[in-house]
């Protein structure tokens, strides 16, 4: 795991401030500045709670508009941070959460706990999206795992998608459960940050078992799951089967899996499909082109 606890919160706040100032009214910005100031200076907890809830009343809920520079700045401040799909109330709530004093870890975590356990759906989404920006990231592990267990797809997605936290902090067990659940609920796997780096044999086995179950019930599986498969002979057998299916999308995904597999037999298998092998070797077929062309990813 690649732990990052060294990012600068004040830079993140500055970026949020800049983005908001272009989009919300002067009054709303003043309101937010005042609240975040009071909170960072240790105002009573109830001010934090009420301000956090009240954000949409003052800021509205429109989509945030970000330039490519903003996005680049975000990724430079906190690698993996991608607020592209955030709304202004989510930005406001994140700013409020980041203003919370955190030197007294116990008090900080207790206060956050109160908000998490009483939050409504929109609030939960804002909180989980902000996880990678919160101080003491390693302390939020159980909370993030809780978010993955959520029955609300939107809440699950706030943890799992476009969020660097899981790849950095989840152990294999939690990580694998998250991927499997994403497959189950139909969330796009290409939005899972650094997912390829966290591929592992156990996950490959789980996904192939899942695919077999689906096939037995005459159901299809998302081609994206082959991304994590290719570690054992059993998995290669599954890939061989997919390569024979009359579905170019499935074939391409299985071919990519073979190309990325550490097993020499995988290369032999791929060689039986020269057109796919050639496309991969020439760089015309990659996971990212696949996500764009076959899954509609906007990359």
């Amino acid at each position, binding site marked *: 795991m690649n732990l990052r606890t060294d990012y600068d919160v004040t830079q993140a706040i500055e970026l949020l401030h800049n983005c908001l100032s272009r989009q919300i009214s002067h009054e709303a910005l003043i309101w937010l500045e005042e609240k975040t100031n009071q909170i960072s200076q240790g105002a009573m*907890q109830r001010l934090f709670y*009420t301000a956090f*809830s009240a954000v*949409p009343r003052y800021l509205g809920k429109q989509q945030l508009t970000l330039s490519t520079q903003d996005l680049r700045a975000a990724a430079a401040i906190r690698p993996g941070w991608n607020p592209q799909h955030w709304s202004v109330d989510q930005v406001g709530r994140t700013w409020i959460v980041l203003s919370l004093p955190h030197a007294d870890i116990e008090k900080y975590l207790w206060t956050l706990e109160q908000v998490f356990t009483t939050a409504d759906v929109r609030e939960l989404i804002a909180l989980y999206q902000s996880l990678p920006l919160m101080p003491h990231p390693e302390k939020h592990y159980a909370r993030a795992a809780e978010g993955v267990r959520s*029955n*609300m797809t939107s809440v699950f997605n706030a943890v799992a998608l476009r969020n660097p936290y899981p790849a950095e902090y989840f152990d294999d067990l939690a990580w694998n459960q998250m991927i499997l659940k994403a497959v189950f609920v139909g969330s796009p796997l290409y939005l899972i940050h650094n997912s390829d780096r966290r591929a592992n044999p156990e996950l490959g086995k789980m996904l192939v078992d899942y695919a077999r179950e689906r096939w037995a019930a005459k159901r299809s599986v998302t081609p994206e799951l082959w991304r994590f498969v290719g570690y054992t002979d059993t998995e290669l057998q599954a890939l061989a089967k997919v390569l024979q299916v009359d579905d170019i999308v499935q074939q391409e995904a299985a071919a990519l899996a073979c190309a990325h597999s550490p097993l020499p037999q995988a290369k032999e298998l791929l060689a039986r499909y020269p057109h796919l092998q050639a496309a991969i070797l020439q760089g015309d077929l990659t996971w990212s082109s696949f996500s764009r062309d076959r899954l509609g990813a906007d990359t």
Partner: protein
Amino acid sequence: MMFIDPHIHMVSRTTYDYMVMREYGVVAVIEPSFWLGQPRTSSGSFKDYFSSLIGWERFRASQFGIQHYCTIGLNPKEANNEALAAAVMELLPLYACKEGVVAIGEIGYDDMTPAEDKYFCQQLELAQELDMLVLIHTPHRNKKAGASQSMDRCIEYGLAPSRVIIDHNNEETVEEVLARGFWAAFTIYPHTKMGNARMVEIVRQYGCDRIIVDSSADWGVSDPLAVPKTAQLMLERGIPEAHVKAVCYENALAAYSQSHQFSESDWLTSTIDQRELYYGNSVLRGQTPVVEASRDQILIE
């Protein structure tokens, strides 16, 4: 005609009630947090109750074409368990400003004990601090004195009467409430509160300014259709339609839209999609989901 029932306890009503209410033209409801029939023994059950008001209940109503709002507060009866009351006061700031929360309420007096007074005042202070409306429950016993004292306290804590709704009024209290500039709400509830026919006479006598009709329907023998039925009786007994509209829809809208959490566009633009899930749960039990493009069919003119 469209109706608002600005005081109804849907947690103790069935989904069937939502379906019938919608058929009768109820487009929005406000659910004041209140007591459940037996005392709660820990603040945890308040927490879950508040969470269901802002979460599941809101979702369930939306699935039947009704917009659900709520008010958050510690009710008068349960203020008498002081240890519990103090813990609930700690919870209120976590819920008071959430989306769809239109007021602090229902608060006020039951037995008019010192503990009730203490927590009533603390909640008025919170409302003032958060710039929120207040919904007041007037007591069943000693109602006139309870209503007067409630209004005194509101003034004392700096709340404008136009931002306070006094509920469960009757012939004895209406005059003072209106004269002092507060909203006067009436609960049409069999036997214990206000009756349909009496309500007609009140509107005949006092007109329609700042008067609001609601059902307070809850787990008791009560009627979730009290608002549309009262409207019908008023029309039958010669109350002008404009007055009926005011007391069964427009006044509640005017009073609660001051919260900026309650707006006609919420229900005029909403659609039903019963395929949606809440925490993985559906309101359906094997039925085919209804998916509706527009809300036109709910307007019963």
